[in-house]
Each structure stands twice: as C-alpha cells, then as structure tokens.
C-alpha cells in the first residue's frame, strides 16, 4: 500500500515537472519566433562558446579517421608479424590519404587566394567544422572563423567554385552560415548572357543534391538552359557581393496559367563536400568589376 502511494505521488510530481518543462519549451519558441534580436540570441552565443571549441577539436581528431575511409582490418588468426605489417600498412595508408586531403585543402586555399588577388575582395579563409543534420530540416554549417577574424553577420561566403551562402551570426572563433540551398534562402541573381535579374530560392533539399529555383523579375524574359547565373549584389555588398557565380540553368519550366517562367539552377558548389570556404570581409570592389571566379561547367 505504501509503495503504491509513493508511486502515485512520484507519478503526479513527474507529470507536473513535464507539464512545466513543456510550457517552458513553448515559451522559448514563442520568444524566439518573435523577431531577430530576441533574448535567445545571447544564449546561442553562450552555447556556441562552449560547443564550438569541442567541435573544432573533434574535427581535428577525426581527420585521420575520415581519411581512412573504408579501410577495415580483419586480422583474425594471423601471425603476429603479419599484424605488425598490416598496422604499418594502415599507418602509411592513413598518412597517404591524409596527405591527399591536405593537398586538396592547399589547392582550395590557393584558388581562394587567386580570387582575392583578382577581384580586390578581402577574403578570410575558413574550414567547415560542423554541418546541420537533415533531421533539423535546415541547411546550415559552422565555419572556423569568427569576429576575431573580422567575420560578421550578413557577409558573403564563397569557395573556389562559387557562392556558398551568407553568415547568419558570428561568435569570436566560429560563425554559422546559411547555405543558398536552404529553403529560407533567397539570392538576387543576374543571368550571364543578357544581364536580366531574378531571385534564386533554395529548395531545402536535405540529401545533398540541392537546387535553386530562379524566378525572373521581368516575366517576359525566358532563361535558357546552360546559361550561367551570378550574384546581382547589393549596395554595400551585404549580404551578397556582386558577380559571384551561383550556378548554371539546368531546365526551364513555363507556366502559361500565371505567365511566369521558373528555371532550375544547379549550383556550382558541391554542398555535400564543403570543406574550405572564404568569407568576404571587405567588398572594396566596384560593382562594375565582378569577381573573376573559376567557373566550372559541371
């Protein structure tokens, strides 16, 4: 009887705690969806100050594991010297494959340096240290540069292939970047062939094959497949500087009902293999001189 009493009391206390916490969660959601500068923002900064160093550390620690790839050792029943040889082999292979990652990174950095020199843009290189999971339904990444490096919110992020996204918020040593394929991302685009303007919206695809939907401002303009799209740019280069390649037009669908044309843009950047990126910290270029980035006809 006493045990049943206690369990009853525990149960009702648990229900109270759960109800209270559920209300707290709903209250946090209400506060956070109220606007841009909510009391939640300082909390995000504080959490980032704790989590970002751990993320950066784990990223460093995981580099050799990542490069090992599908290498699996099955040494059951093998002689000792054989095991030693395999270990040697694994170590050398890891070194070799890490060297591959390092040289890719090096050539990425070199390409970014070339863009910086050619365009007059002041770029800060950074590495992608964390990637938002599909179960959160948004396409964001964390990069390893922050306000200490001159990175602030609403700056353009690009890599050697083209436009990556824009900085949402920056802390001392890390920043969160909204990728252009996120469902909430809109980028002003300019058609490479005739300079017509349009808006590129991300499709929010979560599996890596993200596309953009281009709607031209002038509904009589029909984009052609294969045409390239570059950023249109805004007054001070925030959030996007002008002339950064976005992607190429993959297909065009005309809708006779509401007389609009939408085009599917395939981004130049491979969002499933993001590694080295650069943040445009100072856009001293004139809008007439677009950034001569390497355009790949993928």
């Amino acid at each position, binding site marked *: 009887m006493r045990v049943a009493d206690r369990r009853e009391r525990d149960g009702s206390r648990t229900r109270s705690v759960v109800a209270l916490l559920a209300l707290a969660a709903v209250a946090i959601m209400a506060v956070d969806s109220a606007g841009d500068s909510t009391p939640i923002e300082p909390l995000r900064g504080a959490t980032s100050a704790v989590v970002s160093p751990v993320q950066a550390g784990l*990223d460093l620690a995981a580099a050799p594991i990542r490069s090992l790839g599908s290498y699996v050792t099955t040494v059951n029943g093998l002689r000792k010297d054989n095991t030693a040889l395999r270990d040697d082999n694994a170590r050398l292979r890891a070194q070799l494959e890490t060297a591959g990652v390092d040289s890719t990174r090096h050539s990425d950095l070199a390409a970014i340096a070339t863009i910086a020199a050619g365009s007059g843009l002041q770029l800060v290189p950074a590495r992608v240290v964390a990637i938002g999971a599909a179960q959160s339904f948004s396409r964001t990444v964390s990069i390893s540069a922050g306000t200490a490096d001159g990175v602030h919110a609403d700056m353009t992020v690009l890599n050697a292939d083209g436009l990556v996204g824009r900085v949402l918020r920056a802390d001392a040593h890390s920043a969160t970047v909204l990728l252009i394929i996120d469902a909430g991302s809109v980028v002003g685009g300019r058609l490479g062939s005739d300079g017509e303007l349009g808006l590129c919206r991300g499709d929010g695809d979560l599996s890596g094959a993200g596309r953009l939907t281009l709607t031209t401002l002038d509904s009589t303009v029909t984009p052609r497949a294969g045409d390239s799209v570059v950023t249109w740019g805004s007054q001070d280069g925030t959030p996007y500087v002008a002339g950064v390649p976005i992607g190429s037009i993959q297909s065009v669908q005309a809708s006779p009902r509401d007389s609009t044309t939408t085009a599917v843009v395939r981004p130049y950047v491979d969002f499933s293999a993001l590694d080295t990126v650069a943040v445009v910290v100072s856009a001293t270029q004139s809008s007439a001189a677009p950034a001569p980035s390497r355009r790949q006809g993928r």
Partner: protein
Amino acid sequence: MGALRALVTAAAVVVAVSLQSGPLAALAVAGVVPDLVLLLVVGVALVRGPQHAAVVGFLSGLVLDLAPPADHTAGRWALALLVVGYLAGLVSQDARHSAVAAIVTVAAAAFVGSSVFALSGLLLGDPGVTVAHVLSVVPVEVLYDVALTPVVLPLVVAVSRRLEPGTDRWVRA
C-alpha cells in the same frame, strides 16, 4: 554525487551534440546523422525513470537548439526530447531487461522525437519542413538510430548505473 552526475551528463551532452554535427556528418545517410543525444536521453530514461529523463531531455534538446550550426526556432528539440525522455521513462521498467524491448523503445523514441520536432516546425511555418522532407527523413532516422543502439545505449546505461550505485530508485519502487 549529484554534482558529479550533473557534470558528467552535461559533458556527455556537449560531446554528443558536437559529434552529431561534426565528425558524424561524414557518415550521414541522405543527410541524416544518428541522434546521439536522443540515444543519451533514452539511456538515462532506462536507468533513472521518466522525471529525470524529462529534465535531461529538455536541457539537452535546448543545447541542440542553441548550438551552432542550428538555426531553427529554439525550444523545438527541447520539447521533442522532453516528450521522448518522459515516454521512454514510463516504459523503462519493461524495456530495461530485454535487448529487443530496448531497441523497440529506441525506434519509438526516434519516431516520436522526429515527429514532434517536425510538427512544431509545421506549426511555426519553418520553410524547410515540408511533408515530403519529413517522410524522407523520419524512416532513415529511425533505422539509423536503431542501428547505433547496440553501440551507444549499453555505454550510456553502464555509465548512468555507475554514477548511481544503489539508488536505482525506479527499479525498487
């Protein structure tokens, strides 16, 4: 003992959140990574019952909401993992002694957690949450979490038990 337990739990949450968005992103299947935090909450629920797991779920969900690169409305994972902790805690007496029951609990927890998160996104008008996206993510998430259960769950349960010798209140109640 209570302070040590809180410290270990907090450290585990930070590491799980960081692993989930960092190194584990390389193992993503269709963009979905294993929910280490959810497995942590289920593990705590199995050892300590619904009330403690609900609190741990709420707090670790809040970390998941606020830690970069998250950009959704804060409080959504907090609510989802609060529900997961509470429900998993309610069935913990049955789920604790059988591996099959534990795996079923994880599958149900993954389904409930991702569904509550997706539903809150639909209600708040998150542009990334569409029915098509939800249908493509949730099954992968459930399968991936179940696949990782034999590795992660025994670890969490063992550590929780060690921090809690003799005070396994829920078992004796």
